[in-house]
């Protein structure tokens, strides 16, 4: 995982669990949607988050990760959850809603109040960094 040792202490394991989206990632890639991954799911996850995965595949899974209520769209509530998790709750509610509003302004192409997969992919196209940030090195 990053060290050459085979037995990890509790503190070391804690250090690896700082991704704010870790539960969502586990849920998205698990078979039964409750976070328990089989070996194939595990391989799926690392295959999608590797260097060689194409942009659209990564965008598809990133969309599923950010879609907290699993309804196929990223609505305002999903955005609020994302922003809160990203900032560890240190932004005020008003700032969070302002950010969500601006995100929808920028990204919502058909003005239906939520982001579909196409809108999300458009956002990703504008950010070439996405390929390097949505990436876990093994």
């Amino acid at each position, binding site marked *: 995982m990053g060290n050459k040792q085979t037995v990890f202490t509790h503190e070391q394991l804690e250090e690896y669990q700082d*991704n704010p989206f870790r539960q969502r990632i586990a849920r998205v890639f698990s*078979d039964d949607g409750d976070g328990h991954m089989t070996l194939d799911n595990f391989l799926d996850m690392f295959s999608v988050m590797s260097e060689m995965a194409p942009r659209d595949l990564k965008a598809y*899974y990133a969309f599923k990760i950010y879609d907290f209520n699993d309804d196929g769209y990223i609505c305002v509530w999903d955005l609020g959850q994302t922003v809160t998790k990203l900032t560890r709750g240190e932004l005020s509610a008003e700032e969070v809603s302002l950010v969500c509003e601006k995100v929808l302004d920028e990204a919502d192409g058909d003005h239906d109040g939520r982001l579909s997969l196409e809108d999300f992919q458009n956002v990703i196209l504008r950010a070439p960094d996405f390929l390097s*940030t*949505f990436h876990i090195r093994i």
Partner: protein
Amino acid sequence: MAFVLNVPEISEDHDREPSPYDENEVHDSFHQLIQEQSQWAELQLRELGAGAPGTSDRGRQAPLGPEDAAAPSTATLRILASMPSRTIGRSRGAIISQYYNRTVQLRRRVTRPQLGGAGRSARPSLRLYDLELDPAALEEEEKRSLLVKELQGLTVAQRDHMLRRMPLGLAEKRCLRSVPLGPRCLHTHSLGPAGWGQLGGRCEGPLAAGGCPEGDGGDWVHPPSNCDVVSAPREESRTLTGKHRGGRGQRGLFPCCGQLRDTCVLVLHSLGLGLLAGLHRLMPWHYALKRIGGQFGSSVLSYFLFLKTLLAFNALLLLPVLAFVVGVQAAFPPPASLGSVPAFTGLELLTGGGRFTHSVLYYGYYSNSTLNQPCAPPDGGQCGPESPSLPYNMPLAYLLTVGVAFFVTCVTLVYSMSRSFGESYRVGSASGVHAVTVFCTWDHKVTQKRASRLQHDHIRTHLKELLAEWQLRQGPRSACGRLRQVAALGLVWLLCLATTLGCTVAVYAFSELMIKSPVSADQEGALLALPAVVCLLNLGAPYLYRCLATLEHHDSPVLEVYVAVCRNLILKMVILGVLCYHWLGRRVGALRDQCWENFVGQELYRLTVLDFIFVLLDTLFGELVWRLISERKLKRREKPEFDIAGNVLELIYGQTLTWLGVLFAPLLPAIQIIKLLLVFYVKKASLMANCQAPRRPWLASHMSTVFISLLCFPSFLGAAVFLCYAVWQVKPSSTCGPFRTLDTMYEAGKVWVRRLEKAGPSVSWLPWVHRYLVENTFPVYLVSALLLAVIYLNIQVVKGQRKVICLLREQISNEGEDKVFLINKLHSVYERKERSRVGRTQEAERLGDHPGAC
């Protein structure tokens, strides 16, 4: 123009047109909504029916209460559900993602039998599911076969590409990848509960007798191995399914062959995996880079990746020079020079002179004749049997090798720059900075707690800055404030340029001083003075720039970084320019009778070595001592930031020195490689111990594009110009080197072409090419005109694409507005219908209750 929407009344029981809702292919969100609405509508109708006639008015109002003005009716929802964008036939991506969902659902419903629990003695039929009884599986099989048919129609590369983009599981993709079968094989294949496992598996029954096309025979051997090894725990159930399905006789006939084949395949597979793992471990610094990325993020990692790229470029430059110039000359050393060889003192490592002067390291060592010349017997007799037969024209080899190495480096640089540009800049990408910050800034590579907390802080700060900026922009901007900002900017730039000018003048004056007072042989240490001054200025001036930059205020922090990079770059390039003039303009004249190329080579060697020493000192004082001071004296917990831009410019500067010096010191790339290796380890150690990640947001991929283009444009271009001038215009010294008898270095090529002309008509095309294409100016003009035309065309294409993107965006938002309009219209129409229907129902009930009334 008003129009009447003539929509037929749709009851809940029957639909005139088949809606996708009936086929259970409606999008999930609509499915739920439709169910809720139908339940609610039923409830309302029941309430209305149970209500007293006196309350008919209220009853009529109930379904039209304010709360359901927004909620669309069930019929509207059904119509919306049949919209093409919601149904399965929309796009391939939609098909596959819907299909994937269904696969997951199917897998959830069908639980795999517990092999351990059932026991091996249990009959196969107990452990088996017969898919033919399961209706849902048939649909899925159709879909799968459709998908497979589609895949078969593609070429291997296209299939690979499409499979990579599919959001399907790894096991399924593996089996899809191994499908080479023709359509006949598909139909008799059974799909067991293990899912795809069978598709690439054995051909059973009549097909095994040669029915399967062996067109791509190699592929046919492959599939069983993939699916075998992958689905090892499923193997038993699959083989049992196979037995059950038929072709049991086939398997029974050759059990041992099958087993042998399986073992061979397994062994090969594990060998392949071991080889891959070994290759992975061979990749240099893989673990180190992973640790750096995990602790400091992508932006600091980009510096180390750039270092790795530079190593590759140096290796590319060194290999041809080593093979064709240094190696050959080392094999045929020139006759020993007059005078004694000086003893080795430690100073040579720094100055490059002394013992190293007459060695392969410098230009002067190389001979100007043809090596390995066939012997010319003096009396017309025979040469000895060991006489060599492969002459090697050293001057030509020297010139051509350096030229070709530079050309290959140029092509590689331009290619990697264009690829980097293609990845990081997109046509028509407007600013969407909030969306990008929310969705694309979290770096999943970072694993350390401290570093990820830094990320959280950085994202929060960035979002707050963006909001503040937006609010500021809402407010009016005072002209006075803007004027003050511009004045501060202008002042700082003026001061920085003045500093640069001062440094340049200092270097020029010092170099003139060095010419006027020549250094004798035993005072070689004094030669280190000029390089030391240059390195000191290169080290000190950027700190001054950083202090001056605190006076000015930029709108965006990324602009600050670009401005700092720009200033440092101008300083370094101007100083190098002055040095080049000093060497080619003044030194050539001053050292007319001596070997000036050797001197220039030695100067570049000294510059390289001293640059390395100063980098070490800078790391020591800039990072280690600063951290100790800030921790002990100032009692701050923060460590100094890793200055990415400054370090990258150092690397580019060192690489420029190498490119400038390769003509005069052919082994300089080897020294640069050793220097880069040491710098990597030193910087990594210092980073881990002393630094923290930069607090400012860094666009890592934009930055790597900027680095590569900086490497190409001022750095490589300048070195190429210097090289061209030295080859074409400067007279080589007459006492040393491979070009001693010629007027310019380029003449070596001309001499060779003339020799070819005299040699005979069989190679006459080469002199012709040389005379009419290389020496003539017309082809050069033609090629430049063509290049300009291509560039102009590309610019126009990009402009056109931008326009098209704007138009399409407008169209998308127009479609959205149209959709909202149509939904509202539909809703109002259905409301009216509902109202009239409810009214008619109530009338009918009233008439039914009081039949006498009229």
